[in-house]
């Protein structure tokens, strides 16, 4: 299988070839065999996020009702 060279495909520039070589990918086979998912982000489901929220978060009152409400309002406005 061919050695990776610039212009082998439209996206493969000389800089890209050098970057790939620095990561140990010198041939087309090396590139195709690489597991892209290692470098991409992993999606979390909303249910898992919610479970994590419940186990890791506690809402504490300041003891002053109006201040508690004010904090929530500030949180909404910041978004």
């Amino acid at each position: 299988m061919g050695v990776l060279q610039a212009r082998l495909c439209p996206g493969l520039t000389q800089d890209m070839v050098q970057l790939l070589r620095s990561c140990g990918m010198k041939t087309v086979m090396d590139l195709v065999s690489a597991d892209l998912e290692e470098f991409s982000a992993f999606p979390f489901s909303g249910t898992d996020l919610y479970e994590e929220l419940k186990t890791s978060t506690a809402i504490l009152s300041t003891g002053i009702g109006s201040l508690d409400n004010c904090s929530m309002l500030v949180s909404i406005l910041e978004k």
Partner: protein
Amino acid sequence: MQRLSRPKALTFAHVVGLPGVAQGPQLLARLEGRSSLKEIEPHLFADEDSPVHGEILEFHGPEGTGKTEMLYHLTARCILPKSEGGLGGEVLFIDTDYHFDILRLVTVLEHRLSESSEEAIKHCLGRFFLVYCSSSTQLLLTLYSLETMFCSHPSLCLLILDSLSAFYWIDRVNGGESVNLQESTLKKCSQLLEKLVNEYRLALFATTQSIMQKTSNSAEGPSCAFNRQSDVDVDYRPYLCKAWQQVVKHRIFFSKQGDSKTSNQFSLVSRHLKSNNLKKHFFIIGESGVEFC
């Protein structure tokens, strides 16, 4: 990565009864699950120019103008079940600013469900997926790897990216003196997003920050021409790559009304780039999320 067949092929396979191919409800979900985005927010999208699945919309504005809250609002409307006025569809939320607040989304859902039990909340959240990206390169690779997810989730109709401009200055620095190098990763992301949106009939909502001020020179740039045509003052100066400017079909400008310290009223100007139609809307942000005035 294996490219999977499009719905048309599935239709034929379904007719001839090939084993292992999506049958009945799954096929209908693929065809119908992405067909109802006009109903996602009638205030914004119920016109003849309203975006349907397969379009790219940009939310633009300074921080604190309600862009992310609007995304939570659209997310809630999408993932709520049809019996509760939602679409029963799935949402993929890509967070590049690392400020997604699951507690805020849960609060919005609780206020909108007729019966806000934990089971109902979890049922909605089962239709929500979140991805964090810390660089434009990771964003590009993640988009490639997410193609499998779009294939395997026929009800996934809404793709959200908050925000697309998060890596702008980092990419400028990494690209050195060459503008092409600075913009190359974002250009690839834009092209890939357009391809994914068209192939899988998604709607993409992407936010961008106002990080450039409007120029004072009235003879300069397309942004000033737009401002002259409208009777609304929109502070907009395009700074992202041309590839992104070309794929956006609909741009919505957000701003805050009144005294910024006390007001919770916001406005948005919605502009369809093809027809140049402009519409202004006002909304407030309360406990239950966005409420249009």
